[in-house]
């Protein structure tokens, strides 16, 4: 819980009034009010959108109405198509992510610990990092065909770098003063790793993982759009060919939802693992 700070420093005859007015009363009714206020704009836009479609101001192939999208969503869910497409997409993203992020973690740690390793491999990685997905996609297809391997590798390539760079930075950012302590207390190499380096680098590593998840999802779309016969990306491509714009929308919404859910998951893990941290959490936050 935080107190409002803005008014605390001001002095003068009005300061007391201001202070009283700015105290946030966080009770259920106010929370509901805030929630309803937040809904007002989306509801307004959705109504206009629905009206525009119903009165055929805009063609349905350009912009299907929210109801159409809902119906398309229901149809896909009932037929089981959505579940099967989603399953294969999640599997691809997960496999690519585990391979990429895992390698990123291991190599980031190696390069973080050893100057020699940094000198040998870091310049090459930095060079590869800037190569865009779409540029290497044709190469992967030539090498590995249209199968799962090229897709997963493409996702892994994207997922690798955020974890690699942030692990490296995290390890290099460990307070040298704490290394002195570890020397005095005669930490073994293993204890140095588990009690000092990894916990200290954890905030960075988790940030890397969050970024990497986002990029894995992005890589998935590229991989599925470039050629596949199943997956959410394929569903979008297929719908586009038949001008089923509503299904395209369903695909986009699914991507957004799953992306948000995975991100929230990592953030929850972050809050748990980093509860020792004492950092600025933003002003006037409502939650504790």
């Amino acid at each position, binding site marked *: 819980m935080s107190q409002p700070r803005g008014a605390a420093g001001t002095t003068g005859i009005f300061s007391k009034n201001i202070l009283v007015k700015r105290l946030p009363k966080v009770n259920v009714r106010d929370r509901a009010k805030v929630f309803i206020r937040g809904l007002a704009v989306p509801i307004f836009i959705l109504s206009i959108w629905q009206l525009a479609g119903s009165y055929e101001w805009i063609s349905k192939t350009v912009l299907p109405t929210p109801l159409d999208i809902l119906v398309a969503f229901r149809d896909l869910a009932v037929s089981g198509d959505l579940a099967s497409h989603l399953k294969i997409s999640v599997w691809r993203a997960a496999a690519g992510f585990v391979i990429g992020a895992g390698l990123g973690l291991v190599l980031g740690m190696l390069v973080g610990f050893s100057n020699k390793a940094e000198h040998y491999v870091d310049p090459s990685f930095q060079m590869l990092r800037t190569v865009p997905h779409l540029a290497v996609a044709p190469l992967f297809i030539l090498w590995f065909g249209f199968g799962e391997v090229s897709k997963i590798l493409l996702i892994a390539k994207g997922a690798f770098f955020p974890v690699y760079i942030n692990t490296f930075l995290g390890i290099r950012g460990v307070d040298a003063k704490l290394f002195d302590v570890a020397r*005095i*207390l005669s930490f073994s190499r293993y204890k140095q790793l588990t009690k000092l380096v990894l916990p200290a680098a954890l905030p960075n590593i988790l940030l890397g993982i969050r970024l990497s998840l986002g990029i894995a999802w992005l890589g998935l779309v590229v991989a599925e759009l470039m050629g596949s016969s199943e997956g959410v990306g394929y569903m979008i491509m297929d719908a586009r060919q038949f001008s089923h714009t509503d299904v395209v929308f369903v695909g986009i919404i699914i991507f957004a939802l799953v992306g948000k859910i995975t991100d929230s998951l990592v953030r929850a893990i972050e809050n748990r693992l980093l509860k020792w941290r004492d950092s600025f959490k933003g002003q006037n936050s409502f939650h504790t």
Partner: protein
Amino acid sequence: MTVSISVKEKIFLKGQREVKVLEHVDVTIDQGEFVTIIGPSGCGKSTLLKIVAGIDSDYEGFVKIGNREVKGPGTKQGFVFQEHRLFPWLTVEENIAANLSLRNSEVRRQVHELIEIVRLSGFEKSYPRELSGGMSQRVAIARALLRDPEVLLLDEPFGALDAFTRKHLQDVLLDIWKERQTTMILVTHDIDESVYLANRVAIMSPRPGTVGKLIPIQLPYPRNRTNEAFQAARQQVLAEFEKTEEVHLLDGSGI
């Protein structure tokens, strides 16, 4: 364990210039002594302490604890820094145990005993961010004590604390000393603190740093800062201290 310090020379490189930080420091500290080292800032007292700890080994001379020569840092030379230097991701008890496992019942017993000694019962599961400066420093002292050091080295451990907390921690430290008979070497720039704690006060003069006189303080513990004998001892140390200050100012080097 007797601590014999014999530093012939310690040189720092400042840019292209060589600065002699320490010269001919020969001190022998007996088992169970409490020696405080005072001197003006920049006189090399922290450097001397780091040499004794084995953190700094780039010097001419030797340090011996008992018959063993100090070759590098180790748990037998316990060290407490000016800042607590706790691991922020470990709780109080985990910080004290550090690389030792709390699952070991003997370690756990000793950790909890030390938590009692430094008067932190109830804070076993707290993280350093939830502790005050004085409490954190007590954890740091407990962490050093768990390793059963032959000598405990303290580098201005209470320098950053307010007067009340400082007085309190000085008493905690004296209790520990009385109970455990650990040899203590404490660096400070506070004359009052040095007289309150030590049975011998070493005064360092700067450029190059060397230990002049070791003044014995033959007052019984616990000491009372307001009584005359204490003030007399304090005057004696202050008089010596001012001699070194004069030399320092005559050099025109400033602080």
